[in-house]
């Protein structure tokens, strides 16, 4: 079994954060989203991994993961270039996959339960593919699978008006090499992409059985800023957090706090977990870091009250205001305008930024 992780796309819904990097490297609980995919595959016993690269962030992704040896896996990079659809991405991995089965994992997705059970379920039979499904409240908004009593998929329907089930495809798949023949036969859809659901439908019509695996834990597509905050909350709630850094006397801490060993919570600061604080970061006197917040490396916080937010890193935040439900990009600095005249906020804001003042 091999793994294919999709890391293309423009990340347009995450601008301006993605103006300077790929969406798959946006951190959740101080770890790039893509790293969760690599770890999930490794946990499932999959160590040969193809990472599909688009036109954006190729070098950054390769710099981070290298040949995979630091993560205990062997990574081959596959340059798809133009985003011609999930089936095109899978097709680009044909030579890498060879005659093996493979897991296809969307690199901007995180799921609580990993892919081990999906793989196990697939391996119990002679399936053409296996798909991960999750029950949703609004099936009209998703690609929906109909399944028989044995859990075999009988039909896939994209955003049905009258959904036969509430089982949505969540973007995790296992394929046999038969999928490559199905992809060879595909025609681009109305939106000009090769659709993976069409390939699965073709496998069904060619007589292959398609396994389904219902994912019960949370699953998150991290395509938008709100999704990053939500994923950050879910991961922080579920992760065992280790306080290795220095908590000075006089600092108030409560709940689970991940504090890197080179970081400090100073006297007079208040931190209420779950919180993750990465390397070389200082929480100074007067700062309050509230639940569901991740502070990236090389940052300094002073006087600020911040909660349910993600600070990616290399930031200095020294105003005495309150920041909630926010995503701050790398090197974003927030200072105080208290002493400045004329009174008012000073902003240098990038394209596609969203502020609520």
């Amino acid at each position, binding site marked *: 079994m091999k793994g294919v992780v999709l890391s293309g796309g423009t990340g347009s819904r995450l601008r301006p954060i993605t103006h300077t990097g790929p969406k798959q490297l946006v951190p959740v609980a101080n770890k790039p989203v893509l790293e969760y995919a690599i770890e999930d595959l490794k946990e499932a016993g999959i160590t040969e991994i*193809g990472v599909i690269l688009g036109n954006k962030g*190729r070098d950054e992704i*390769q710099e981070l993961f290298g040949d995979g040896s630091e993560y205990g896996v062997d990574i081959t*990079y596959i340059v798809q*270039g133009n*985003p011609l659809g999930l089936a095109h991405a899978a097709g*680009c991995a044909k030579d890498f996959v060879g005659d093996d089965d493979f897991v296809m994992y969307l690199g901007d997705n995180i799921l609580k339960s990993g892919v081990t059970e999906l793989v196990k379920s697939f391996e119990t039979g002679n399936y053409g593919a296996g798909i991960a499904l999750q029950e949703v409240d609004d099936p009209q908004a998703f690609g929906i699978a109909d399944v028989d009593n044995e859990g075999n998929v009988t039909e896939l329907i994209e955003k049905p008006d009258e959904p036969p089930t509430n089982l949505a495809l969540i973007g995790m798949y296992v394929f046999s090499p038969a999928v490559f023949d199905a992809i060879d036969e595909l025609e681009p859809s109305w939106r000009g992409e090769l659709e993976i659901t069409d390939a699965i439908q073709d496998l069904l019509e060619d007589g292959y059985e398609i396994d389904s695996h219902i994912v019960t834990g949370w699953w998150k597509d991290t395509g938008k800023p709100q999704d990053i905050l939500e994923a950050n909350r879910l991961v922080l709630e579920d992760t065992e957090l280790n306080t290795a850094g220095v908590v000075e006397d006089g600092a108030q801490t409560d709940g689970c706090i991940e504090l890197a060993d080179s970081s400090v919570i100073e006297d007079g600061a208040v931190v209420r977990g779950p919180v993750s604080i990465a390397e070389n970061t200082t929480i100074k006197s007067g700062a309050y870091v509230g639940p569901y917040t991740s502070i990236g490396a090389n940052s300094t916080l002073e006087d600020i009250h911040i909660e349910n937010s993600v600070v990616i890193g290399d930031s200095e935040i020294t105003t005495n205001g309150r920041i909630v439900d926010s995503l701050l990009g790398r090197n974003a600095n927030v200072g105080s305008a208290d002493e400045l005249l004329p009174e008012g906020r000073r902003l240098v804001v990038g394209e596609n930024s969203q502020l609520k003042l």
Partner: protein
Amino acid sequence: MRIITHTCPACGTVVAANQLEDSRVMKCPGLGCQEVVRFEDLPEDAREHFLENRDRYQI
């Protein structure tokens, strides 16, 4: 749709034909690899197929 790729002989990075055809001649996108990869590295039948169906490999 036939999906055509080329594997860099130096580092093993796989490059889709649409990417090769965009650049014709390019430094391998594998980080640190100095190999030059070309659209002409593809087999002749693959190149012909790609060029005859070029529109389908664009957005």
